[in-house]
């Protein structure tokens, strides 16, 4: 229609297609029974209801209880010899502990790591999509993607679905031409570069521990111990964190996995100073 074109009105779907990096994803009310969402990613949305409140309202109706895997403590900090990333490994669904050995760090490529906190499905899906985009970037541009660009891609994915009830707090850590990089990205579209971040429900405890022990000129062993302590103390006090501490060290020639230690054993070791 002529007026429609003259007015310059862009339909919502077109705008979304420009914002989202990987081409159009559509919000539909039922699965496409010819392609099953294999050509472009489709998201089914309940009709006439606000998606973020929909699940909560279903839970209240009695009989149905859809609890999604949640809950974490993750931390990462830069120091003289690179970036330390430490996460716990607990996933809870409501009051039930779904698993105590989840892997909350996604190894995007040998120079990029992403952590996951918040809703497990959201983190796994979007960070896997980010890994795909990083790989495509590498193939198209013949050089590895920078940490800033990778975190920006993830941030824009989150902005595309802002307000729809996603829950994700992630740290993108890597080493690129600018040196060590650490960015915090969350589901509201916040993207911050910094020296130290901690996310999840146990983050306040981890901040306290790491802030009190942090020095920029720490040795590598001291940094490992600080990361371990941060997670161990956070899991000790936060009910929704626990399991094991998975720790990675991002160095100039890539990341290495440092350790995977059970937090109860760590707390026993620290006991002398605690009680």
């Amino acid at each position, binding site marked *: 229609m002529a007026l429609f074109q003259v007015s310059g009105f862009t339909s919502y779907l077109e705008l979304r297609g420009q914002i989202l990096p990987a081409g159009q994803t559509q919000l539909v009310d039922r699965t496409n029974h010819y392609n*099953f969402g294999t050509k472009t990613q489709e998201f089914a949305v309940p009709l006439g209801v606000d998606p973020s409140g929909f699940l909560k309202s*279903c839970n209240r109706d009695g*009989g*149905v*209880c859809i609890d999604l895997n949640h809950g974490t403590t993750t931390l990462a900090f830069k120091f003289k010899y690179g970036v330390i990333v430490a996460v716990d490994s607990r996933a809870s669904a409501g009051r039930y502990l*779904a698993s105590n050995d989840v892997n909350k760090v996604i190894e995007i490529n040998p120079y990029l790591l992403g952590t996951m906190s918040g809703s497990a499905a959201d983190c796994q899906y979007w960070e896997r999509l980010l890994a795909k985009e990083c790989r495509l970037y590498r193939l198209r541009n013949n050089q590895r993607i920078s940490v800033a660009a990778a975190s920006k891609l993830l941030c824009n994915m989150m902005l595309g679905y802002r307000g729809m009830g996603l829950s994700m707090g992630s740290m993108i850590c890597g080493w690129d031409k600018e040196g060590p990089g650490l960015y915090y990205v969350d589901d509201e579209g916040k993207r911050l570069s910094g020296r130290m971040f901690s996310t999840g429900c146990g983050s306040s405890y981890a901040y306290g521990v790491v802030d009190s022990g942090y020095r920029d000129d720490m040795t590598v062993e001291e940094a490992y111990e600080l990361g371990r302590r941060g997670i161990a103390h956070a899991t000790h006090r936060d009910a929704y964190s626990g399991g094991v501490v998975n720790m990675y060290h991002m160095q100039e020639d890539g990341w290495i996995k440092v350790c995977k230690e059970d937090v109860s054993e760590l707390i026993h070791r620290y006991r002398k100073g605690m009680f």
Partner: protein
Amino acid sequence: MISSQTFEDPGKMRDYHYTGPVEHRFSPYAFNGGTVLAVAGEDFAIVASDTRLSEGYSIHSRDSPKCYKLTDTTVIGCSGFHGDCLTLTKIIDARLKMYKHSNNKTMTSNAIAAMLSTILYGRRFFPYYVYNIIGGLDEHGKGAVYSFDPVGSYQRDTYKAGGSASAMLQPLLDNQIGFKNMEGVQHVPLTQDKAVQLVKDVFISAAERDVYTGDALRVCIITKEGISEQTVPLRKD
């Protein structure tokens, strides 16, 4: 008298007391009960489910197993809302056929798990109310179990229980298969016969204490020879 104790309020009966005017809305979900369990061994995997289909206070069917065969090396167990289980297994079957026709090979267990994760996430804002557990053999012939939440978060495990009695069965499996919280016990690897016996015992216990579990137990044992099924009766009350 309904006991007020529940593990995680699955299928909780509505409380009938007067609270003022209440808005009744159509709920697209229902809870049909059922429990699913999967165990992975060195060269085998077991997927077991009860066969009771219930809703509220009624039992719709005593012969509705929740294990569905996907390929010669993979079985999926789905419990939760039966309507979504049926639709989800139909969509998985269609996607398996599409993969077979495009790639001229059958999907491996971990590929099916990754695909199911994206299928479930495609309904992130209007989820399938299904708790899935996939059991099968990986490319190296070792047993593999993949457990999912309703929106697609998944991980590989050695054993997992899902469904209405999951909170009762999981600690028992942690103790017997994972040797958790036991001191001075030798960690012997699980043999196939011991695993089958354990699964049967564990379901008998679940049927004693969970109202939505019972009637019969269907066990699917996946080995490189193929998938064999056994049916064991459980309490019918």
